[in-house]
């Protein structure tokens, strides 16, 4: 990993291989606590262990291959731009939270406005979007009989 001015570079497969191998080790350790078995049904853990073990081996393979072949792709992250993407991700999570608190239609106005702001679109697209949201809301609640929150 190397740090530049507001930029981070990392080797794609090495980073993903190491990160995923750590995650799979954590998953492996979680198995006895989240799949509690007795003697009679111990095979409920067998397949999860097989799969997680296999995922660990593959993660290590991806990382080791990157080190051995030295042909890994270098990804460059512009921290300022990544920050904007992160803000959008936060807005998405907030959207679900707002659906719970304010209801589907109000929350949808919020996330749609945020999405359109990312694209700096024209005002008439905002208007068309508002109309479309109302149509979708009534389509689900009235026509399809799904009472949206």
């Amino acid at each position: 990993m190397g740090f530049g001015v507001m930029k981070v570079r990392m080797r794609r497969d090495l980073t993903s291989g190491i990160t995923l191998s750590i995650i799979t080790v954590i998953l492996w350790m979680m198995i006895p606590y989240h799949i509690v078995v007795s003697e009679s049904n111990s095979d409920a853990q067998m397949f999860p262990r097989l799969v997680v073990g296999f995922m660990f081996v593959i993660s290590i393979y991806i990382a080791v291959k990157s080190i051995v072949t030295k042909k890994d792709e270098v990804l460059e992250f512009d921290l300022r731009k990544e920050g904007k993407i992160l803000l959008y991700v936060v807005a998405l999570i907030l959207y679900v939270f707002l659906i719970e608190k304010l209801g589907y239609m109000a929350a949808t106005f919020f996330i749609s406005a945020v999405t359109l702001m990312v694209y700096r679109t024209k005002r008439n697209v905002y208007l068309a979007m508002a109309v479309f949201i109302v149509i979708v809301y009534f389509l689900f609640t009235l026509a399809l009989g799904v009472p949206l929150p």
Partner: protein
Amino acid sequence: MEHIFEGFLAVMTIEHLVLMAIGILLGMIFGAIPGLTPVLGMTLCLPLSFSMAPIAAMVFLLGIYCGGGFGGSITAILIGTPGTAQAAATLLDGHPLAKRGKAYKVLMMALTSSSIGGFISAISLLIFAPVIARFAMQFGPPEYFVMALFGLTIIAAISSNSIAKGLFMGSLGFLLAMVGIDNLSGVFRFTFDSVYLYNGFSFISIMMGVFAMSKVLNEVYEQIYNPKKVQGIDSEDFIAIESDDVLEGKEIRRSLKTILKGSAIGVLVGAIPAAGAEIAAFMSYNEAKRTSKDPDSYGKGNLDGVAAAEAANNAVTGSALIPMLTVGIPGSGGAAALMGALTIQGLAPGPLLFRDYAFEMYAIMVGLLVINVMMYFEGRLLMKYFAKVAKIPKEFIIASLVFLCAAGTYSVGRNIFNIYVLVGAGIVFYLLSRFGFPTMPIVLGLILGSVAEDNLRRALVISNGSWRIFFTRPICIVFILLSAIVVFGVIRQNQKKKLAKS
């Protein structure tokens, strides 16, 4: 024959015909908009299908599936941007011909060959699926386990430049499928004491997260990193359709051999899990060019090139359903969406489907035939309007995807938790895709997870815990060898590509 006739009567109701027409319309729209795919359209419409009866739900989704195949070619021909990856081969000759003022003729050729290809493929499904299902009745748990691994291995191998990454994602799909109460022992697995997880993750939420939400995030990423690249399509980019340049009967007759050959290629390629419509279209295009008397005209505007590509990419639709319906192995995203719909309708795909639900199965297969005929007339009537959907601003589509998915996934279990899963899946798979991990194997892993696990455990009970059972049964050995051949073949091909690049 009796089953086919009963199926025909069952499918020819006003309700089914209207649903087919709506499905085809939606499919063409999703296919015509560059960046959207018929699979995404099917995923978005899956929740709508739950309230329908099995035959109605399936013909509706099959309409989207088939309509999307032709929809992609509209934008490929008129603006030189394929609406779907499978229309890329159509673009090679379709766009140059359209630029010469033959847009209507080319679109008609694309529509005619798509419909013929799709029709032939539907017949192949009708003929071969029951035969293969009868053969698959001999399968026991060891065969099903090996088949599930075979399907996943092929998809992992083909869907990415790195087989390791494909296999990782397939395994992650297996892992997600384990969440909930274990089918065989009743043990709670990774439920975190949440009642929402007792039945596992909602398939729809994960599928929408993988296909739609990660797409939204990828588009936002593109817009933030390369804002100039993402722009709407201007009116001047479109080639106008002059409807006086008709496609004549003799032109169809001249291309008929190419269409039939392309259809045969599409049917064969479609039956192989993961091979897909894109490969079929290019194979058929290359074959038409190879056997043509005028191969130099290909790529500059040869009507046969359009016919070859379109016949093949739509001929994949029916045959791709054969492995899904008969042994429960979906070979493509579209087949996976259909399998999800069937499962939720209580019709678990597999050989028993043809014994226990023969009436529904034949109605659905006959429905696919009808859809291809209907697509011809609907496409002909509405062709010029579909071209205009590509003008919808991209930001409008991206913003709509977010709340359509939220509404769709909420409607499945009527709980907010599903929307959290949708957003969570979207974020995770967006991150993984940035690191070069393919998304397709995870959907297959999710579907095949319980098939693989349940049958592995049953097989080990039969064999008293010995893994030798998988190496002593002929069908298992054949599929293990086939998996190995595919993996080594793809590894060698990838190595060759890397060598050629360097």
